[in-house]
């Protein structure tokens, strides 16, 4: 209880420019078995993750598939109920809100999904897709409604006459523009972008990323940018967090993380990215094996089964996640040895 209070005090102090504060977020999915569906264990999709994002900044979250990136994004918006922890958006704990309060708060937090093909209702024209939530939350008076939608569409580089068209008439890139417009129409403070460009072609990716950056500058939006594409994350983020099996293993400002990666997993991840230069022969750290099952994670440091620098202590004791100067957080025993 006491610890909790101090945590909240600290938040109050920096709440002014912090839009999102995630503290010790946990999300476990129960594993049920047998006739009576007894809970026999838990998949620890997210197991104690903390980070905060300042206004107008972008926090990039990277990691392999199955490490819990998407779960974080969804739990923060309470699209799935959390198991523990806090997510404070503009000074209010999202997890403590009642349903009615949550609904009121929805316009402030929006999400862009990965697949623009399945996240748009095929039976709704574009104007209605973008405007549905605007009507629901009474963002603008009825009379200005259509103009408002057109303005949002203009911001997202959609032509005015698209308003009565249906999603199937658009290409993947344009659909993603519609998804962004839908999120933007509510004037949110924070947008969770869950792999927004992964399903798109290279040249269209650039278009969407540019647009997201322009909108951020114009409206001071905060992004939680989830992606597995490191080069995109490097380009768009201010701070980057690396996840492995439900935990953050490293978090640092972008340039620091990419120039000076500390955790062996981050290094392996960075070296695995193919460099588009045929003359560069990479000194590659190739990780062996696959990501272990989150239902039965390894003891000690979760990464020790694949780590090239595994020591005895790694098998026994989970490393502490702490600041090693310059807001560079690392969770690795190697750091203490230096």
């Amino acid at each position, binding site marked *: 209880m006491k610890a909790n209070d101090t945590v909240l005090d600290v938040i109050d102090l920096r709440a002014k420019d912090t839009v999102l504060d995630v503290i010790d977020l946990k999300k476990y999915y129960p594993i049920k078995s047998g006739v009576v569906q007894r809970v026999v264990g838990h998949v620890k999709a997210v197991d104690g993750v903390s980070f905060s994002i300042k206004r107008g900044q972008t926090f990039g979250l990277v990691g392999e598939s199955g490490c819990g990136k998407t779960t974080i994004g969804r739990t923060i918006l309470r699209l799935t109920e959390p198991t523990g922890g806090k997510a404070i958006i503009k000074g209010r704990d999202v997890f403590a809100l009642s349903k009615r309060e949550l609904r009121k708060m929805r316009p402030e937090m929006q999400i862009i999904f990965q697949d623009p093909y399945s996240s748009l209702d095929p039976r709704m024209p574009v104007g209605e897709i973008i405007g549905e939530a605007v009507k629901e939350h009474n963002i603008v008076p009825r009379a200005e409604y259509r103009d408002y939608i057109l303005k949002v569409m203009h911001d997202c580089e959609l032509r005015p006459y698209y308003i009565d068209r249906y999603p199937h008439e658009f290409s993947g890139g344009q659909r993603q523009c519609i998804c962004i417009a839908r999120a933007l129409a509510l004037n949110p403070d924070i947008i969770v972008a869950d792999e927004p460009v992964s399903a798109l072609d290279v040249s269209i990716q650039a278009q969407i990323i540019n647009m997201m950056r322009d909108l951020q500058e114009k409206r001071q939006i905060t992004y939680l940018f989830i992606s597995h594409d490191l080069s995109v994350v490097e380009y768009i983020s201010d701070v980057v967090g690396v996840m492995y099996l439900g935990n953050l293993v490293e978090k640092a400002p972008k340039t620091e993380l990419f120039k000076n990666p500390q955790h062996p997993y981050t290094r*392996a991840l960075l070296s695995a990215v193919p460099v588009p230069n045929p003359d560069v022969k990479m000194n590659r750290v190739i990780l062996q094996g696959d990501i272990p099952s989150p239902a039965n994670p390894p003891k000690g440091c979760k990464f020790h089964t694949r780590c090239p620098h595994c020591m005895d202590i790694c098998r026994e004791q989970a490393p502490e996640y702490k600041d090693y100067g310059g807001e560079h957080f690392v969770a690795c025993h190697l750091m203490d040895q230096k």
Partner: protein
Amino acid sequence: MQEKELTTKQRLRSIKKFNARKYRELKRLRRRRSVPVSEYTTQMADPNNLLEIDDLHTYFYTDIGTVKAIDGVTFQIPRGKTVGVVGESGCGKSVTSLSIMRILQEPQGQIASGAIRYNQLAQNRAIDLVKTPLKEMQKIRGGEISMIFQEPMTTLNPVFTIGKQLDEAIALHSKKMPKKEVAARSVEMLKLVGIANSEGVYKMYPHELSGGMRQRVVIAMALACNPNLIIADEPTTALDVTVQAQILDLLRSLKEKINASIMLITHDLGVVAEMADLVVVMYAGRIVEQGTVQDIFHRPMHPYTIGLMKSRPNFVESGDRLYSIPGNVPSPIDLPNYCFFRNRCSQCIAACDGAYPPLMAVSDTHKVACYLCENAQGKDGE
């Protein structure tokens, strides 16, 4: 108004008629009992090449018109080399590979003209895959030319064990091999692709494996019959970067072990730079630029190739804006008779209004289809 409607109707009817004729022609062609060998044997232009694609046209006869998915593609795959084919979705990369394997969706998809000369080393002859009868093709598919598909999830059959599916591929191409030997070979292949618990995986079902493991199984299957050519159609797109690194490493080492050629289809320029010896850049069904990796990455000439590279975040400083190619790919049904890239190109010149630019040689290895490079060619000569 009425008149216009009528013409649309007439147009659609004529398309239907045209398509029906094409389907009939194909049916007649397929129905022939025996095709004389002399009809499909040819001569390779260069005996060092494994595969020569010569002015290939693959069309899809759809109800709204003919889609020219590939419209005159010419390139070679030398023995023991890796050729990377790059381009955005819909540019005809995959259709090229399907044409080589002759697994197009028939009768809509047909090879309209052109030749795919394949150097059948084992029998010391060259054959034209376009004219080869299906019976003969079945021996080649999976045996001499094999394919790795993009989605390891959908490539494997969920109701059969890994072992059964591998055995099937091996047994089909070596009919006299006893069952035990086939099984042993399957386990050996699984070991070769770096699966530690190969005997265990042999008995498993696809759903029990992770994406990376499944892709390894698919690679094992593709390599099981010692192919001369491996067509890898986006082999790592569905995988994580760490697993991608493992798979690419594996492909590279295996290629050397069995001395095969690889045709690598991808949209990831990084993967191409790392794997390929030669690169082909495709746009809207045609080749816009081809050359060695060094040519393409150090001296890209075509505005499309340059745009493609500039739009990747790892080519630019993080402060700069990413370059995005304006506009869209032209509709594949009514392709214009000028350069397909003209409307999106920032460096148009007067000549661009003319006919589609032919592939022009900039150097011995480097060819570009752009009028801008005519001048560059002159400069090189001076």
